[in-house]
């Protein structure tokens, strides 16, 4: 904590001068980068369209109320499909993520030099490719419908689940593993008595957390034909049936908030 001497009085300052200057310089560079990026975006924007956005918004809002509640009858089936896509997709992801996580964790991987980088690459590629892109490819392969959605969500979630799970595996208490090994337990026994009980709460938490995210993601898969409520949303937007669109948006909000509540309750109960 630097104290400056000025006019014979001690003045407290939060930081030393050099550090203060460095921080100031950092801010300067960050601001410059931001302004530069902003300028490039602004060059590519037709400002005329942006400026009349409020007119468009008012127009759209007017067309969207009141929501057409009678349309709800046709939404139950897609809604059920959406929830199924999220749930089954999460299950698929968990089944596939467990071996990947064990291969990626430093303390359980069969080979650090060969298996671990492969597992890490699987994790990163599954995480970096959005579920919509997965769905785009899968619809071409397995045909449109719920099945493509389930697989897309599954493939997309492997990375997330495996990453969190392998971090949990790396953080386990090694002494317990050592104690189980000392009783003469075999490899699978060490796994099921030494490691699995320790990561079980994390595993349950991760699965519910991902399920919650997947509900949100599965609402849009229909846009590329992979089933669920997105299909209806796309149809309504294309046919300019804005009162139906607003009802679908309300349904999505309610589902997402409900799933978030469920997931928070379950995670609270586990931890």
């Amino acid at each position, binding site marked *: 904590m630097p104290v400056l001497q000025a006019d014979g009085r001690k003045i407290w300052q939060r930081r030393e001068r050099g550090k203060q200057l460095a921080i100031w310089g950092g801010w300067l560079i960050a601001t410059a980068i931001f302004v530069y990026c902003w300028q490039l975006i602004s060059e590519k*924007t037709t400002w005329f369209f942006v400026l009349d956005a409020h007119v468009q918004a008012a127009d759209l809002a007017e067309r969207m109320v009141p929501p057409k509640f009678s349309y709800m009858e046709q939404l139950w089936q897609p809604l059920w499909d959406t929830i199924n896509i999220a749930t*089954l997709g999460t299950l698929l992801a968990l089944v596939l993520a467990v071996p990947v996580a064990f291969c990626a964790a430093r303390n359980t991987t069969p080979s650090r030099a060969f298996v671990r980088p492969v597992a890490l690459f699987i994790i*990163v590629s599954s*995480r970096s490719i*959005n579920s919509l892109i997965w769905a785009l490819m899968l619809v071409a*392969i397995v045909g449109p*419908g719920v099945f493509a959605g389930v697989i897309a969500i599954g493939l997309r979630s492997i990375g997330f689940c495996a990453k969190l799970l392998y971090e949990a595996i790396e953080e386990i208490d090694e002494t317990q593993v050592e104690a189980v090994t000392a009783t003469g337990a075999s490899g699978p026994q060490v796994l099921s*008595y030494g490691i699995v009980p320790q990561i079980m709460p994390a595993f349950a938490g991760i699965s519910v957390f991902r399920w919650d995210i997947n509900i949100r993601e599965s609402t849009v898969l229909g846009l590329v034909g992979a089933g669920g409520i997105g299909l209806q*949303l796309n149809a309504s937007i294309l046919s300019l049936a804005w009162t139906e669109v607003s009802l679908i948006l309300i349904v999505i*909000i309610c589902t997402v908030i409900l799933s978030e509540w469920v997931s928070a309750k379950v995670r609270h109960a586990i931890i």
Partner: protein
Amino acid sequence: MAEISLPSRRWKKPPFIKSARLRWALGIGAAVYLALAFGTMEVNWGRVAEGLPRGINFVAAFFPPDFVTRWDEIADGIYESLWMTVTSTVVGIALSIPIGLGAARNLAPRPVYLFCRGILAVSRSFQEIILAIFFVKLFGFGPFAGFVTLSVATIGFYGKLLAEDIEDMDPGQAEAVRATGASWFQWLNYAVQPQVMPRMIGLGLYRFDINFRESAVVGIVGGGGIGATLNTAFDRYEFESAAAILLIIIAIVMAVEYTSGYVRKWVQ
């Protein structure tokens, strides 16, 4: 000597869910749900069987990735995505700070709290794509719509985590600073901010990473960036270029992730 029969007691692994009733209820519920879910899911296995060889062709069409032919378009798309990511992360975080403060229960009065929580819930409920569809309608095609989309999504994510972090802070420090007679802003600056800052910097970098990944899809509905290039590549069946784009996205995400990991370690 009379024989004493000891009851044979074997150690059993304690179950993960302690209450037996809950365990059974969950098990049966899960079984019923799965039966229903699989029952209503229509899988056209004929189509799948037909599609698999096609799928192999499809995947084979991705090799070898072609970086050269469409390099100019790819580079343009990547740059656009990066600008969108930078600006939307900065603007989104800047906007989410007041909203996050308002959504913290220990800071804001009740009406403000409910209002801010409402904003967060709405912006979090909609997937980026749905937001993008509407913003493209409002602002026209191009990176500006993508920028607005990602900013709104950032507000939902960052504001919620900021609010939760503030709610979890140590009230002792806050009280101590307040006791010195600090004004509200001083109190915020010296009591609240230092407690949440390290985690928030980490989350900001994480959101940067997410925004880059999302910028790859807002382009599909017209929001600009690499997603537009990717979509065009798919539409024109130039799968080699699409593969190159996907590989570049993966590489950049990896790079950002490693950098943010180092920065986070350095900050905390």
